[in-house]
């Protein structure tokens, strides 16, 4: 019986994981121009320490966060370990610094609401406040 329960839990976890992997990722910013849309390259550049014509400042989630994993693989197109290597190269060559990290999606929303020009990534199931703007969507 115990083995059956374990098997069911495992199947449930895999199912949840697959559902989560299909989750749409939203790039949300606190900006005045509600019509602004960015390309994937522009989003990637902002979160990899580059600049944008719109003076946006990126906010990230912690390494173990599932939304971050999805953002890395689907928007940036790199694994977390490669992104860590990239930041080591940028940091110790004095070029770029990684974005500030906040511990949860809710903290990211609060930070975005309070800071003009801030931009973060969130899963589509989270309620986005009306004063924030979705500037890119990765389905």
């Amino acid at each position, binding site marked *: 019986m115990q083995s059956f329960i374990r098997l069911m839990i495992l199947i449930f976890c895999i199912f949840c994981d697959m559902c989560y992997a299909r989750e749409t990722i939203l790039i949300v910013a606190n900006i005045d121009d509600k019509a602004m849309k960015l390309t994937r390259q522009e989003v990637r550049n902002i979160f990899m320490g580059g600049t944008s014509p719109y003076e946006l400042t990126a906010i990230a989630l912690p390494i173990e966060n599932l939304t971050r994993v999805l953002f890395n693989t689907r928007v940036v197109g*790199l694994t977390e370990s490669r992104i860590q290597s990239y930041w080591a190269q940028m940091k110790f060559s*004095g070029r770029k610094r990684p974005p500030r990290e906040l511990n949860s999606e809710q903290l990211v929303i609060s930070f975005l609401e309070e800071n003009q020009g801030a931009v973060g990534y969130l899963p589509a199931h989270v309620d986005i406040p009306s004063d924030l703007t979705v500037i890119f969507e990765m389905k």
Partner: protein
Amino acid sequence: MIKPRLLKFFCTTLVIFFSAVTFAEDDDKLQFSGFARLVLGYLDDKDANYLDYDNSIRIDKESLIGLQLDYQALDNLAFTGQLIGHTDKNRDSGIEWLYLTYTPTKKLKFKLGRQRTPFLNYSDVIDVGYAYPWATLPQQTYPRHFFSTFDGAMVSYEIPGKEFSLNIEGYWGYFDEDIVVAERTVNAKTTNFSGLIGHINYNNWTFRGSYHQGRTDVELNDLSEFSEILAQFGFNQSAESLKTVGLTEVFQLSANYENVNYFVRAELNHIQADFVFVPDSDGYFLSAGYHYYPFSSYISYSKNKADYDQAANEIPIGLSPLLDSLAFSYQAIFNQLPVDSSEAFTLGTRWDIQPGLALKGEISLIKGQGDDRAFFTVNNPEFGRKALLYLLALEWVF
């Protein structure tokens, strides 16, 4: 028994780590970070050394620890210092970087002070092993004697686009330090040292192209004196061929592609120097790897070809003992120049144990031709210019 140098290295590691942890919490404006690597190496041939690795397991050749301090004095003004402690007694430990950064806009950045020379793609992070997939950068494209710091100014400007981003860096400065050329440690002063670097990022592609040049004056008194003697005899071509002042140029191109499953990286460079002791050199490497988290396995090939300028053939032989002696002495200088043309095949795996910590293992077959030195230190003339190098590297950033 642990050697005193290694013991000192580990003690420094602990002190730096705990200092970093303590101070990092004190003030957001002051940030300590660092990197360390422990590299074990073994060469399977007792007749030669390669990168100072020999037929015994060595840990004191490329192991090191570095500490970086960043202080954000104002919103647009920061100070950065970097100290490195090497276990290799042939490498200078101490201040590697010390510069201030002025960022008037997010796209424009100025750096002033002592900085790493950004010749090639990884040359300013050559000591930060965590930043690249391999256990060591290929000697064929990253000759160790060539990389150092410079004192000067650097400007960086970024142009973000919808489909790509472009970053341009330019620097100007000088350096004055001891370098090793043709197995001799000599003082080299480079003035009017400058370079231009362009980076293009397009989706998962990264391209880099750069040009660097400087006027170098190498202190080789015996060579300068001999050159003067040749000039006095009227052998101006021969005298000119031994000059110790000249232009050094470096050309570099690289392309990287990487996604969640695999990577391909390639880099080539051409080094051209107007000195008898520094050969013109062409080097390249190609590396492809496959990611299967938490591992990445890769295969690489690197090759370089070095050519010295030809000796001038103007001193007559057989006319007088004095001229014969002059001609043989002149020719002997060229005959003893070591040729470092070689190639290397590498297989390796990187294991990302946790964020900031990775373990790498790799094996390289290094091959040279004929009597070329091929970056080996030859202990036995019978050595066949072929050896396997085994490396195990633990990489840490904090």
